[in-house]
Structure formats: C-alpha cells, structure tokens
C-alpha cells in the first residue's frame, strides 16, 4: 500500500518549496556557512521569523511612539520615571525603527531572497522542461481510474494527448503514456506575491529616504508659497531637505465649516472645506481653483496638500496713545476644545513710544465662537464651534515683548518676563468684546477694537515619492496571493497499454496537493470524455482487484 508519507512527498513535489535539512553537511567553516544559509532560507526559519515579526510589532502599539506623538512620549516618560530609561535603551519609544525590529525584517527579507530567487530559477527550469513522465505504477497515485476498451492503445494515447492539450494542460506523449501538468499559475502567483513584498519594501524605503512634510497655517484671504521661510515646521529626510521644496503656492479664499446643530452629537463636525487658488512652477500669475477637504487632498506640483485643522483669527486694530494705528489684522488663535474655545496672543511690536520710552504691548486671551451668557459657571468656554455669538476676551500687558532679542519666539505665547500687566482699579484689566466693540486701554495706552474674525486652515504639504511603487507592489501581492491560494497545480497521466487479451487497458491517474478536492472530479471528467475515443467494454471486470493485486506485488 502506498503510505501517507509517500503521497505527501509526491504532492510536495508540486511545490518548489525548499526541503528541510537536519545537520551541517561537509566540513569546516564553509560547511557551517552553507548550513546556516540553508537554515536561514528554510521554511521553518521563515516561519519563526514571521512569528517574531508579529510579536515584535506588539509593543509599539501599546507604548507611545516618538514617530507618532512625541508629546505623548514625554508625558508617558514623566509618569513612569522608573522604567523610562530602560525603555529608552531598548528603543521601545521607536519600535519600528529600532535595531531589533529592523534586524528581524531584514533577516526575513534576506531569507525571502535566498528562498525566492533559487525558486524562481527552478521554476523557469520546470517551465522549460517537459512534465515529469508517468510513474511506472499509476495505481500508487492518489486518484486513479482504469477501464478496458477495444480501441487501440496508440489511438487512445493520442486522443488523451489531444484532450489534455485542449484542457490547457502542458502535455507530452512518450513511452506509451501521456504526462500532463496544469496550474503553473499557482507557482507564478506565489513567486509574484513574495517578490512583490520586495516592491513594497522598496516603496517604504524610498518614501522614508526621500520624503518631506511641512506644516502651514493660512488665514482666509492670505497666501502661501512653498518656501523654507514660509513653512511653520518641516521634517525632511536624507534626500529631501528645505532646499528641495517644490515651487508652488496658493491663496486661501475661504473656509467652510458645518456642524451638527442638534442631537446628541451636536457640535461635531460635518464638513470642512478649504477653497483655494493655486499656482505651480514659476508662473505665479496662472491661478487654478481647488477645494481641499479632509480625505480629499489636492495634488499640486508633485506634492499633496492636506487639510489638517482649522480655527478662528480675530481681526483687531490697536491705536496708540497718539491715535496712530499700530496693529491691524487677523491673528490666528488655536482651538483648545471641540467647541473651538481658542487661545492666542497679540503682539504689538511697533507700538512706538509711551512717555518717551520705547514700549510694546501684548495681549492674551480667548476667542469664543459662541460665548455663554455669563462666565460665572463655565469660565471662558465656547458653547458651539460655529461663530454664532463670537466674543474676544483679553488681558493686556505693556513693556518689552522680547521680540527684538533675535531669538525665535513662539507666536502663540507671551513671554511676560519683561512685561507688566495693565490694571484697572487694582484688578488685572480685562475686556470682553463683541465684534465692533472697542476697548479703551487703562493708563492712556490707547484703544483696541475687535473688528470681527476670519477663519484659518492649517495644511500639511507632503512630498512622498514611492507611493506608486508600494501600491503596485500591494496590487501584485494580492493578485499573486489569489493565484497562489486558489489555483491548484496538478499532474495527470494517461497510459493505454495493449493487454494479452487484445483489449487495451486505459489507466488515468492524478496528483495534486492534499488540499485539493477537485482533482478526483477533474480526473473523472477527463476519463469520461476520453471514453468518446476509448469506450469502456461493457462486461468490464472490476478494476479494484487489479489494483490490489498490483499493490501486493510490491
């Protein structure tokens, strides 16, 4: 009887997967080297590396990562001072770029190359060679059928050859039997899948080496041009720095925000759209209209511009003691909560002189798009993100803003070291202004008028090459997988032999991987069709005894 292992090894030959080896063969360092390489490129090690890769990816999802949220990492470190240094050493805040994570996937890809490249050659060899000849004893194959016919054995073999060809098998006739094979797409798919993983990796690598990303906040009616000086922040890479920024720019014509006005999720956003006009290259005059929404970035000059955030910029005019306009325009305030309670500062750098001394003014406070009736219970918080009842709440400082020191300053923070807070009746001077209202500053500092507000939108300008390579890799991977998992590679043999009684014995047999249930049905179909040319003799003796007899002879 054919044993299970025999069948399995037979079936295994339908894959060019590497076979396992137990110990080093050969002598000395070279033998060991060869052995190590064989181990590394074996299925077992591939399995272990895959397992390790998934385990290694876990900590990064549970511990805050620098690459995603550096601020969260800082908070976490502050909360866990004991383990932080150890985590730091283990690169647990940068798992996906850590030495150990990289080691695993690099080993995996080396293993993959060592496995796939020889398999590709081997497979090319298979394609160039003829399908393997029929085994001597076809009854040993996992699926088998036989019958007797009056037709001549040569004619039957020829008919079988023609039929298998018609069914898309690669077939050849020799030694009185037809050998045929089909389903090479399985192997093609498998190789394509594994090779496309390299394309994915290449796309990833290129993206991380040649990408850059900048952030920019733009107030309505204002413009932006993609240069180093205009960006609020920038992260580059090896091959894409500030000097490589692509030339383009745009003007933010307007911003539309809509919110749910009722129901339990009242106030949550329903639509954000930034309406812009943009130009590319050196032709700054030719403007094209475009909209940017969440999920719908705009591609401009090889870059993608994403809408990231939005908020309000109160428009304020400040006049000094002499009545001269010293500050005028919108200033972006940053949202602090879902209802867009926003905080910000106004820095009046060019106030001029007061009492013969060079003076600057600073204000900080809140912009509330929908202010509550009174602040008593709530404090200065907005009730709704839309500007239904806007209010500007400010306190004032005078003195030296420190903007002339030449050191970079945060535009959203007031450095009060050299400032004194203005007071009124012994309390900090404070104003709550509705649009159009003016505030006469104490101590004769002049006036501040809240003219109204504009909206702003913040954008990410992203230059990321390699996306299309990764996408092609991904599509190839999926197609490859489909071929690899759904196509069955199988072999079919037909042998017609002249018997001593003058009749012809037709034997058909098939071999497929153990997962295939269809090989039996396919073989039955082939056999039934073949009976057109080789009709079974009616008083057919059962083929079962023949099979057993042959088996027991072994």
């Amino acid at each position, binding site marked *: 009887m054919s044993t299970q292992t025999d069948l399995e090894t037979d079936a295994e030959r339908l894959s060019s997967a590497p076979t396992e080896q137990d110990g080093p063969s050969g002598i000395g360092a070279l033998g060991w080297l060869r052995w190590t390489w064989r181990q590394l490129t074996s299925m077992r090690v591939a399995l272990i590396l895959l397992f390790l890769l*998934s385990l290694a990816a876990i900590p990064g999802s549970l511990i805050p990562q620098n690459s995603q949220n550096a601020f969260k990492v800082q908070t976490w470190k502050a909360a866990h001072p004991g383990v932080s240094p150890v985590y730091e050493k283990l690169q647990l805040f940068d798992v996906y770029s850590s030495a150990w994570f990289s080691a695993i996937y690099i080993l995996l890809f080396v293993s993959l190359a060592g496995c796939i490249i020889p398999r590709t050659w081997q497979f090319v060899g298979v394609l160039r060679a003829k399908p393997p000849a029929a085994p001597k004893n076809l009854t040993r194959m996992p699926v088998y059928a036989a019958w007797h016919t009056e037709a001549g054995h040569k004619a039957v073999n020829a008919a079988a050859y023609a039929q298998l060809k018609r069914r898309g098998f690669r077939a050849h006739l020799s030694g009185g039997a037809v050998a045929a094979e089909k389903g090479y797409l399985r192997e093609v798919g498998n190789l394509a899948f594994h090779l496309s993983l390299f394309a994915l990796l290449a796309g990833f690598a290129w993206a991380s080496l040649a990408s850059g990303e900048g952030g920019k906040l733009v107030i309505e009616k204002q413009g932006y041009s993609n240069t180093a000086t205009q960006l609020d922040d920038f992260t580059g890479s090896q091959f894409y720095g500030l000097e490589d920024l692509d030339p383009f720019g745009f003007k933010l014509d307007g911003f539309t925000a809509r919110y749910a006005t009722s129901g339990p999720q009242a106030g949550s956003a329903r639509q954000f759209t930034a309406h812009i006009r943009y130009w590319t290259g050196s032709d700054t005059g030719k403007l094209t209209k475009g909209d940017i929404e969440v999920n719908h970035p705009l591609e401009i000059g090889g870059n993608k511009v994403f809408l990231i955030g939005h908020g309000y910029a109160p428009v304020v005019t400040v006049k000094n003691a002499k009545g001269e306009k010293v500050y005028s325009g919108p200033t972006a305030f940053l949202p602090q909560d879902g209802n867009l309670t926003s905080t910000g500062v106004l820095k009046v750098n060019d106030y001029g002189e007061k009492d013969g001394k060079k003076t600057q003014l600073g204000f900080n406070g809140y912009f509330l798009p929908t202010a509550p009736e009174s602040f008593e219970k709530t404090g200065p918080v907005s009730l709704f993100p839309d500007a239904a009842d806007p209010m500007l709440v400010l306190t004032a400082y005078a003195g030296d803003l420190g903007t002339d020191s030449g050191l970079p300053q945060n535009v959203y923070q007031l450095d009060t070291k050299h400032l004194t807070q203005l007071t009124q009746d012994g309390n900090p001077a404070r104003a709550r202004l509705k649009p159009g209202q003016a505030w006469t500053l104490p101590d004769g500092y002049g006036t501040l008028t809240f003219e109204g507000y504009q909206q702003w939108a913040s954008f990410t300008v992203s230059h990321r090459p390699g996306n299309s390579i990764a996408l092609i890799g991904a599509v190839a991977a999926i197609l490859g997988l489909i071929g690899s998992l759904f196509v069955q590679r199988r072999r079919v043999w037909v042998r017609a032999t002249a018997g001593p009684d003058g009749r012809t014995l037709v034997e058909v047999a098939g071999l497929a991987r153990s997962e295939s249930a269809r090989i039996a049905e396919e073989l039955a179909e082939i056999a039934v069709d073949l009976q057109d040319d080789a009709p079974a003799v*009616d008083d057919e003796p059962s083929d079962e005894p023949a099979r057993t007899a042959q088996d027991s002879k072994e």
Partner: protein
Amino acid sequence: MNLASSVDPQLADLSNKLIYSAMAVYVIAMFAHIFEWTFGSKGAVAVRSVEQAGLAAAVAAAQGPAKGAKKVTVTVASADGGTTTLTRTALADAGATVVTSGRDTVADLDGPGAAGSSEKGDLAGRIAVSLAALGAVLHAGAVLTRGLSVVRWPWGNMYEFSCAFALAMVVAYLGLLAAKKPVRWLGLPVLVAVILTLGLAVTVLYTESEQLVPALHSYWLAIHVSTAIFCGGAFYAAFIATVLYLGKDTYDRRIAAGRTSGPLGTPASIWQRLPAAATFDKLSYRINAIVFPLWTFTIVAGAIWAEAAWGKYWEWDPKETWSFITWVFYACYLHARATAGWKGRKAAYLALLAFACWLFNYYGVNIFVTGKHSYAGV
C-alpha cells in the same frame, strides 16, 4: 444651517427595536439548538444520517442507466490511508451525474449531526434554523433602517460595525445551509457568537444614529470597512472550525487511548455527532485561505484611505499595527500548513493565535488603545 433633518429619528428608533427583536429571536433559536443537541444525545448515534441515506439512493439511481452510458469510477486515496470512490456517469442526452461514496473513509467518519437519530432533535434543529432565518431578516432590517436613517453606509462606529459583522456571520451560515452544505452543527456556535456580539453592541458600544465626522466621509468607508466586516465574520467561522478540529482530534486521541469521554469531560456523544477532525481541519484551512487575500486587500484599502486622510499610508497607528500583526500571524499559519512537521495541531494553534489578534484588534484596540481610528464612539 439646519441639519436636524439629516437624521431620521423614527427610522433610527425602528432600527433599535428591530435589533432587540432579532436578538430575542436568536436567543429562542439558540435554545432550539440546545434542545436539538439534548434530544440527539438520547438517540442511537450509529444510524445513518439523512444525507447518507439520500446518497445511497443517488448511487442506485446513477448505477441504473449505466448500460451504454459513459461511466468512470475514480478511486481516491485519502491521507489517512482510507479510500473513497467517485463515480461520474454521463448520458448522451442528459447532463453528468456525480456520486461520491465512501468505504472506510473520511466521509463516513463525519457524524450524523447534532440531532443524531432523534426525530424530536431533528425537529428542534429545523425550528432553530427557521428562527435563525427570521432573526436574520429582522437583523438585516435593523442594519438597513439604521443606514437609511442617516442616508449612508451603516458602519460608522463600533455599534454599527458590530451589528453588520454579526449579520455577516448569520448570513454566511444560512448561505452555506442554503447551498445544501451539511453545516447545521455550526448553528449553535454561530448563534452564541452572534448573541454575544449583539449583546456587547447594544450595551457597551451603543451610539445614537448620527452623521459622520468628515474624516469618515469617504467611499473607502464602504470598501474598507465592509471587507473588514466580511473578513471578521469569516475568520470567526474558521475559528469555530479550528476549535472543533482541536476538540475532535483530542477526542479521537482519547478514544484511541481507551478513554470514553471527550476533552474537558464533555460527553462522547457530542463528538460522535460532529464531522471528522480532518473535515474541520480542511474547512478552517479553506476559509482562512479564501479570506487571507481579502484581508490583505482590506489592509491595502485602509492604507490608501489613510494616505488620503492623513497624508501617510502607514504610520504604525495601533489599528494598523494590529491589522499587520493579524496578517502576519495568518501568513504564519499558511506557511505552517506548507511546512513539514507543522501541519495539523501546531498550525491550528497558530490559527487560534491569529484569530485572537483579530479579536484584540477589533475590541481591544478600539476600546483600550487610543489612536487615529477613534471612530469607536465609546
């Protein structure tokens, strides 16, 4: 700026009522299945099942008109040393008839089903299936009205996701039954899973019907999330098959070692009525193999969506990371199936691990880990 009309409260309310009705019907169906199992344990197990009786009739029918017809009998050697035969008969004017029959084969080792030979058990099982179908209709209505109440795809938060996912599971199960596959034994585990999922959905995960935040305004929502739901349902089914494979395999070993009960002291009669270990093993492999490319597609679609929404297609966000981990574990499982010495139980353990990752990705990451996928609404 009046958006109040964008949610239809009556439809939303109807959807909630339908979900509760569906759950009630599922619970009754579950009890019917429990009756089926209980009655079935009393009948003699060795009696042939209805399908097998039907098979015998078909064999006879196929052998009748054999004179003059083309007929081939293929002998199939199975991995465990048994053989099956498959007979194909083709008449000149009629289509082909295919009949499989076993002798000492895997097919024969497949048990008769939960009801055993008990007629009462069979009746209970039939009632259970009808109720499950009724529950599915109500359930589908709930998902549909939920979507209609906001005129969008009904999977914008975890509550909706869970309802759709549970529906996918029931429909897949009923679909297999409708395709005449002998899977009624799946009924009890599927219903338990569905009731648990819906129970969790209406208690912990419930969110009022609402429009979506702009980050979810994308046709990728329909593509990415619906394939994810389908994958989830199918992985779940494969998980059940894997657990049953391990159970049946353990039972077979215990019987071979001379014991009389199943694993964990379960009565032998349960295991006798279930299909063979090899059947479960094959089933779980087939489901996982079919779903794996789709899961790959789901991840790729998610990456494309992420690229459109956030500018980077892969940022190792916790959800992305766990999808990746799940994917690699399933790849591991498929590799194991192709590696000598790893087939069978070891591969099955990997499949369980992969499914555990899937579950964690779904419940764990949404609830306990904060990331950009904060649509959970909990």
